[in-house]
Each structure stands twice: as structure tokens, then as C-alpha cells.
């Protein structure tokens, strides 16, 4: 009896998949790639923007173009924060890009 049971276990059960199963997988892959591309572009643009913003503020600080001493205290932290955020965004964009290129 065991042989018969094992033979039955090795028999493929009925499987019903849609005819366009593989095409649907590819469609999902293309959609995810497009989403990734959009996300990456957004991160890159935002990274560049914040990077330049922090650079501009650094210049303002260094050249002391503003003559408002109270504001300078806050500006220092804004510059640091934006600069750090910009670098993180750029690194993130680089990683996403690298992952995409690897594929």
C-alpha cells in the first residue's frame, strides 16, 4: 500500500493557473521598475536641491552676508541639518541606482 500512496504523492495535483501568468509577472516587474525609477529620480532631485541649499547657506555664513546676528545661530543648525539630509539623500539615490544597475 505504501508504494501506492507514494506514487499518488508523486503525482502532480491539478494546478490551475491563468494562461497569462508569466506575462502578468513581467507586467508587475515593469511596474515596480518604473516606480523605482520615479522614486530614484525624486530622491536624486531632492538630494541635489538640499545639497545646493546647504552649500548656499554655508556660503552665506562664511561670507557673513547677513548682518542679522540672531538669525546666524539658527542658520548654523539649519545648514548642518540640510547638509546632512542632502548627503543621506544622495547616498540613498546612489544605492538605489547601483542596485538597479546590478540587475
Amino acid at each position, binding site marked *: 500500500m505504501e508504494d501506492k500512496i507514494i506514487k499518488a*504523492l508523486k503525482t502532480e495535483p491539478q494546478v490551475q*493557473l491563468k494562461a497569462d501568468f508569466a506575462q502578468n509577472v513581467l507586467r508587475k516587474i515593469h511596474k515596480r521598475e518604473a516606480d523605482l525609477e520615479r522614486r530614484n529620480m525624486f530622491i536624486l532631485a531632492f538630494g541635489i536641491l538640499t545639497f545646493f541649499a546647504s552649500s548656499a547657506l554655508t556660503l552665506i555664513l562664511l561670507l557673513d552676508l547677513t548682518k542679522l546676528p540672531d538669525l546666524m545661530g539658527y542658520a548654523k543648525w539649519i545648514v548642518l541639518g540640510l547638509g546632512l539630509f542632502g548627503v543621506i539623500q544622495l547616498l540613498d539615490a546612489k544605492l538605489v541606482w547601483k542596485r538597479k544597475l546590478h540587475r
Partner: protein
Amino acid sequence: MEDHQLVNRVLQGNYQAYLELIERYKLLVVHMVGRVVTDEQDKEELCQDVFVKVYESLSTFKFNSKLSTWIATISYRMAVNFAKKRARRNDTQELDDVAFMVGHLDDTFEEKDFSNFVHQIVMQMPESYRVVLTLFYLEGFSYPEIVEITGMPEGTVKNYLFRARQKLKDLAAPYVGTEIEI
């Protein structure tokens, strides 16, 4: 074409090669997912998601194991996570606690009917038993490969297989009768 070549072609951006890979491992994924997720629509959707995940992770696959083992591992983990979210798992249930609904077979049943009957019983077993039986008998994986896929200790895998076989023998005995020697 060998798996290695196929994977390299997919990594070079050849979608046709990926279609071939899907065709090659479609049944493995369907069997794995089908043993954990029972709803037909969920099953098909999850099988597609497994292949999306395989595609996204393919660059990390280093051929330390067989491609089929790697795909089966992804399928098993995704199916289990899906079932956890749906909270329909009966994994904690013991085999002896399951009340089996055995379908009717007449005296003139054919081999195909018996096979359906066996699969019907398997589907009523706790999830771990279903998965182990499928991996061992249907997909032909070895014990170490099943350990790698499921993360269960080898002793547990062997125990599940033994107990599931015993249960199947007990339930199928009245239908097989004396016509086949044990």
C-alpha cells in the same frame, strides 16, 4: 539551457530568459504556495509575487545551493508570511487532532481517483506536514534541502514524513484493501 546560463541571461536584462525561468519553476512555486495558501485567487497572486521577488533578488543568488532550493525557500517564506497575515495558519495543530473528511471512492476507483484522494487527505493535514510531504515526494528534495527551505530540524522533517505516511496508510487502508501488498 542550464540554470547558470539562464540566470546570467536574466541578469543581463533578457526578459525572454526570465519567461523561460518562470516556465521552468512555475509548478514548484505553485505546489509550495498551494500547500500553505488555499484560496485560489490569493494563490495565483502570491505565486506572481514570488516570481517578482525572485527577479529582484536574483543578483544576490550565488549558486551556493540549487536554484530550485532557493526559489522554494522564497516561496515557502512568502507563503508562510502571507498566511500569518491572514491568520489562517493551523501550524500549531497536531496531526492526531485533525478530523479528516475522507472523500468517497467506490470499488472501481482508478489510479487518478486514488491520487486525488491522497492529495485531498494531504490538504487536510497541518501546514508543516503538507509542506514536507510536497517537498520530499512531489519535488524530490533531499532532507538537507528541506531543512534549508523550511528551517525545520532534520529530525522534525523525518518525523513529519513518517507520521504523515502512517496517517495516510491508516486512512487509505479501507480503500486499498488487500489488492496491494503492504
